[in-house]
């Protein structure tokens, strides 16, 4: 190794972070996050009273003086959280988005999230911009999968990249980041509401008190109740912002729930990146949700498929 490169890398890291400072209230935010997680664990221990009370507190704080509406939102979110926490069905979420489709199958600790190549061709124009180029034979094919596999009866984390025919295994199962922060999947510039663990994501999202309004909407001819989140705007990561030539991203989301079972039937998210030379770009994702009986066949789909002949590599090999 040339020592100059080491020195340059060291200098580069200094420069890259020279304007970085820790935000005020970091300890407070971490303590608050900790308390919320403890509360969520209590909720998952099937204490319906705790669910209702914590939801009321969270949403009243957001809604302020509009107590009538706040109580309605609080009641609704508590019902949804209870329904999501207590169901024992297989979650299937099919997402269509500007960046191509993806599917999540989840049951208990098992999950499989599959990301597909877009079906659009390289010359498609979306929001006035030419889309990406990629080999046509990949169109609509699975690109990668992340989730769990069973190895010798033990549940393990797995990640597969199909075009590379490579996969890796990990002792750690996929986890869901905090929905209360403004990051989530934002850092990747993709739709905000794509998650391996939807149940956890919905649970956390509602626990954050992010929901602000409700209304009745028909989805595919069926009446649903709509919960709308507050828009969130964050600055794009500098390197990423340079690559896509934009500076800011604003995210919106909405949850549509069955008014009888209170289980989500559709999740819609959109991101708008703007502020740079590339001009504003809007991407969106719509996830249609099904809750299936936990049959053997359905549960089998909640495990990642690793085709025979694929090479197992360590994560440091880039998979």
């Amino acid at each position, binding site marked *: *190794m*040339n020592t*100059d*490169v*080491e020195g*340059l*890398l060291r200098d*580069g*890291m200094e*420069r*890259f*972070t020279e304007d*970085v*400072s*820790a*935000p005020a209230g*970091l*300890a*407070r*935010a*971490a*303590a608050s*996050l*900790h308390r919320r*997680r403890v509360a969520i664990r209590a909720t998952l221990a099937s204490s319906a009273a705790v669910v209702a009370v914590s939801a009321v507190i969270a949403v009243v704080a957001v809604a302020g003086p509009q107590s009538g509406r706040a109580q309605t939102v609080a009641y609704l979110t508590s019902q949804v959280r209870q329904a999501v926490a207590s169901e024992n069905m297989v979650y299937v979420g099919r997402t269509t988005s500007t*960046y*191509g489709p993806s599917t999540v199958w989840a049951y208990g600790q098992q999950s499989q999230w599959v*990301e597909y190549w*877009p079906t659009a061709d390289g010359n498609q124009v979306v929001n006035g*911009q*030419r889309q*990406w180029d*990629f080999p046509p034979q990949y169109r609509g094919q699975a690109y990668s999968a*992340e989730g769990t596999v069973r190895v010798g009866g033990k549940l393990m*984390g797995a*990640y597969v990249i199909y075009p590379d025919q490579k996969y890796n295994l990990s002792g750690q199962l996929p986890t869901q*980041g*905090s929905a209360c*922060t403004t*990051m989530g*999947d934002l*850092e*990747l510039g*993709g739709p905000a509401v*794509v998650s*391996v663990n939807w149940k956890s994501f919905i649970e956390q999202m509602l626990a954050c008190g992010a929901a602000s309004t409700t209304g009745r909407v028909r989805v595919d001819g069926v009446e649903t109740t709509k919960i709308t989140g507050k828009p969130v705007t*964050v*600055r794009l*990561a*500098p*390197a*990423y912002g*340079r*690559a*896509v*030539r934009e500076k800011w991203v604003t995210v919106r989301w909405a949850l549509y729930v069955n008014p009888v079972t209170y289980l989500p039937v559709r999740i819609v998210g959109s991101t708008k990146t703007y502020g740079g030379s*590339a001009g504003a770009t809007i991407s969106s994702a719509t996830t249609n949700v099904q809750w299936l009986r936990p049959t053997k066949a359905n549960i089998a789909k909640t495990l990642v498929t690793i085709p025979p002949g694929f090479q197992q590599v360590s*994560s*440091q090999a*880039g998979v």
Partner: protein
Amino acid sequence: MADDPTARELEFFLAERAGRLMRTAVLLTGSHDAGQDLLQTALERLIRHWRRLDGDPEGYLLRTLYNLATDGFRRRGRLQRKLLLMRAGTQPIADPIAEVDLRDALVRLMLQLPARQRAVLVLRYWEQLTEAETADVLGWPEGTVKSTAARGLQRLRELADGWNHADPALAHVKLRGQHA
């Protein structure tokens, strides 16, 4: 919060060390916001174990940061990132003569490395730890640290070469010692 002794101790600790930890978290994730998210997650774990901590909280926090960063913390959406970068590559460069410093380019390239390689390089060249100290933080054998660092540096050269072709704004970037 102010009456909570754990929080008070933590605030004292962070008043001294948060800046440096935040910079480390930004280097591990590549962005300010993701770094903040990572550090907050690590701090939440620290709070969970605060009363049971016997030794140096910074050491615990550092280990947690690196372990979170290398266990696939927010690795989903690779295809989306790839596609957006491909899309960006098809557009004219808005400012082709933008000043791109070699040091800046190296860090940008480092942020594309797999998480484990990136973590080793940050520990070695940012924290300036020895190979043995790096192995201790990550809980890996020293040989693994050595080979991972070597692969990471090698990958930097390869990626730099790829970027030279893909991004005209980086065309003038050449690493000293880079293979032809």
